[in-house]
C-alpha cells in the first residue's frame, strides 16, 4: 500500500502528517493541540490498528496533547503498548512518559441514569433543606435578639459609629427615592380614584381613599419593598463578600462576635430608619394625592386637610407605623442571614443576594397580610 496522505489542509509551517505503509505509521511535522482541529482522528486510528510501529523520528514538535494522541495510537496497534513508538528524542520520550503516567484511570464508569425515584429523593432533600434553613434562620434571629439584649444591658458595647454609618446608608440616602416613589403613588391614587368616584359624584371621598390606603398600607409597604431591594441586598453583598474572604472566620478566631459587630448595627439602623422613611413616604404620598386632587377634582388643599383631619382615624397612621419596625427586622435579618450563608465562590454571592431580596419582599408581604388579619380581629 502506498503512502496515504491524510492531511488535506495546506502544509504550512510543517503541519503534522501521518503516513502509513502497512506496518509502519510515521508521523512528521508539528503535532500539537491546534492540529487536532483539522485531523481526521478516526482514520488515523484505523491505520494505527494495522500498524506495528509508530515512527516519530520526523516529528519536529509535540505538546502534551500530541503525546497523548501518540499514546492513544500506540494503544491501538497490535502490540498495544507505548513501546511501539520509535525514533523519539530524549525530550519527547520524557514528555510521552509524563503523559503516560498521568493518563485517566481506566473505567471511570458512566454515570447511572436518573430514575423517577431519584427525582422524589431530590424533592425530599429540598423540603428537608428548606426546613433546616427555616430553623437556622430562627436561630439566627435568636442570636441577633440576644446580641441586642446584651447591647441594652451594656450600652457601651454598641458600635455607635457603625450604627450611625448604616443609618445614613439605609435611611438618609434612601429619602429621595422613597419620597419620589410615595409622591407618585399619591398622584396615581388620586387620579385613578377620582375617575371612579366621579361616576357617583363622590369626588370628595378621594381624600379618604388616599389617606387610608397610603397611611395604612401603601406608604410603609412600598417603602419596605424599596428598602429590601436597596439595603437588604447591600447587607447580603457586604457580609457575603466578607464571608468569602474568610473575614468572618478571622473575626471569630480573634474573639470578635460577627453578629454583634456586623449584624446588630445594620438591623438596628434599619429598625430606626424604616419608620422614619415610612413617615416621609406618608407625608409625600399625601402631598402627591392632595396636589392631584386639586388639579383633577378641584378639591382645594384646605378642604383636603379638613377632611383628612376629621375623617381619618389616627389609628390608620398608627397601624402603618406599628408595622414598620417589624418589616425592618424582617429585611435586616434576612439580608444578614443570607450574607452569612454565602460560600466560597462568587456565584453563591450572587445567588444569596437575589434570594435575600426575593425572600425579604415576600416575607414582608406575608407579614403585612398577617397584620391585616390581626388588626381586623382587634378592630382598628
Amino acid at each position, binding site marked *: 500500500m502506498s503512502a496515504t496522505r491524510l492531511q488535506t489542509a495546506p502544509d504550512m509551517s510543517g503541519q503534522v502528517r501521518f503516513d502509513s505503509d502497512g506496518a509502519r505509521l510515521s508521523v512528521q511535522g508539528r503535532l500539537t493541540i491546534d492540529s487536532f482541529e483539522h485531523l481526521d482522528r478516526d482514520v488515523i486510528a484505523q491505520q494505527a490498528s494495522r500498524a506495528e510501529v509508530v515512527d516519530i523520528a520526523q516529528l519536529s514538535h509535540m505538546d502534551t496533547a500530541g503525546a497523548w494522541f501518540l499514546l492513544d495510537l500506540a494503544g491501538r496497534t497490535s502490540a498495544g503498548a507505548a513501546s511501539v513508538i520509535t525514533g523519539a528524542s530524549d525530550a519527547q520520550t520524557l514528555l510521552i512518559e509524563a503523559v503516560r503516567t498521568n493518563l485517566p484511570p481506566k473505567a471511570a464508569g458512566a454515570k447511572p441514569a436518573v430514575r423517577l425515584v431519584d427525582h422524589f429523593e431530590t424533592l425530599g432533600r429540598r423540603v428537608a433543606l428548606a426546613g433546616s434553613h427555616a430553623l437556622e434562620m430562627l436561630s439566627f434571629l435568636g442570636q441577633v435578639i440576644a446580641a441586642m439584649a446584651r447591647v441594652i444591658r451594656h450600652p457601651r458595647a454598641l458600635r455607635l459609629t457603625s450604627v450611625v454609618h448604616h443609618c445614613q446608608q439605609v435611611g438618609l440616602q434612601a429619602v429621595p427615592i422613597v419620597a419620589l416613589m410615595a409622591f407618585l403613588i399619591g398622584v396615581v391614587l388620586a387620579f385613578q380614584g377620582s375617575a371612579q368616584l366621579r361616576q357617583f359624584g363622590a369626588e370628595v371621598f378621594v381624600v379618604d381613599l388616599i389617606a387610608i390606603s397610603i397611611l395604612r398600607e401603601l406608604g410603609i409597604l412600598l417603602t419596605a419593598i424599596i428598602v429590601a431591594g436597596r439595603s437588604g441586598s447591600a447587607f447580603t453583598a457586604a457580609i457575603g463578600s466578607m464571608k468569602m474572604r474568610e473575614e468572618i472566620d478571622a473575626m471569630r478566631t480573634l474573639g470578635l462576635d460577627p453578629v454583634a459587630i456586623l449584624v446588630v448595627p445594620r438591623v438596628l439602623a434599619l429598625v430606626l430608619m424604616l419608620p422614619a422613611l415610612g413617615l416621609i413616604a406618608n407625608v409625600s404620598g399625601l402631598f402627591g394625592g392632595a396636589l392631584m386632587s386639586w388639579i383633577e377634582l378641584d378639591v382645594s388643599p384646605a378642604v383636603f386637610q379638613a377632611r383628612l383631619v376629621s375623617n381619618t382615624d389616627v389609628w390608620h397612621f398608627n397601624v402603618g407605623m406599628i408595622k414598620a419596625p417589624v418589616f425592618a427586622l424582617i429585611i435586616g435579618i434576612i439580608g444578614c442571614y443570607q450574607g452569612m450563608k454565602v460560600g466560597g465562590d*462568587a456565584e453563591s454571592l450572587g445567588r444569596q443576594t437575589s434570594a435575600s431580596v426575593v425572600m425579604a419582599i415576600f416575607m414582608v408581604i406575608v407579614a403585612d397580610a398577617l397584620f391585616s388579619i390581626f388588626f381586623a380581629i382587634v378592630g382598628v
Partner: protein
Amino acid sequence: MPSDPNIDPIIRVRGLVTRFGTTVVHDGLDLDVKRGEIIGVVGGSGTGKSVLLRSIVGLLKPAEGQIEVFGQNVRDTDADDYRALRRRWGVMFQDGALFSSLSVRQNVEAPMREQLDLDDDLRALLAGIKVRMVGLPNKAQDNYPSELSGGMRKRAGFARAIALDPEIVFLDEPTAGLDPIGAAAFDTLIKQLQLSLGLTVFLVTHDLDSLHAICDRIAVLADKKVLAVGTMQEMLALDHPWVHEYFHGPRARAATPVAKPKETE
C-alpha cells in the same frame, strides 16, 4: 528538544517605569529573558515582582518603557495580535485566581474552550491529564476551588496555566504554601516541562530550594530596578548587602546543596 537557537530574548523589558499614584514601583527597569530558560525573580516583599509580571503580560500599563514578548510590544498590539500572543503564554497568579464558579477541570478547560475547537470528551480528557500532571488526585477534578486546600488551588492554577502548552509560563510564587515534598515535586514538574516542551519559565519565588534546583538564572529586584541577573554561583559571589543577606542568610545556608558542616545554634 533542542531549544530554538534564537539569540533574541523572548522577553525584553527596557526602561520600565511603573507608578501607583505617587508610589514609584519600578524606575528604569531592564530585563531580558532567554528562550528556554527558567529565570527566577527574587526580591523583598513589595519590591514589585508581581507588578512586573502583570506588566509583562499586559495587565498593567507601564508609565514609561518598552515591554516586548516574542518580539512584539505587549501594549501596542491590536486585539487579535494580543489574543494570539496570549495563546502563547500561561499565567499563574499569586493566589491561584481560579474561577470560583467552575470546577477544577472546567477551569483547565476554560482556555481550551476559548482558543480551540475541540470536542467535549477530548477536551475533558486532555484537561484531566493536566490536572493529574500537576499532582492533583483524580477526584479533585470535579471539586470547586472553595473545596480545595491552598496548595491544591496553586496546583490547579498551574494546570490552567499550562493547559495549552504555552511557550512561556509566568508563575507567581508557585511553591509558597506547599509542603516540602509537594514543592520539590512541583520543581521537578517545571523542570520536566522545560526539558520536554522547551518551556520558558518566569518564576517569581522566595523558595531558595527552587532557585537552587531549577533556575538557570536569577534576577534580583531591588531599588526599583533589576539589581543583578546571573546564575546562582554569580549571585553567591555578588557583593551587595541585601543580595548577600538573601543568599547567605541562615535559610540560604540550609538550602545550599553543597554539604556544609551543620551549625549548632
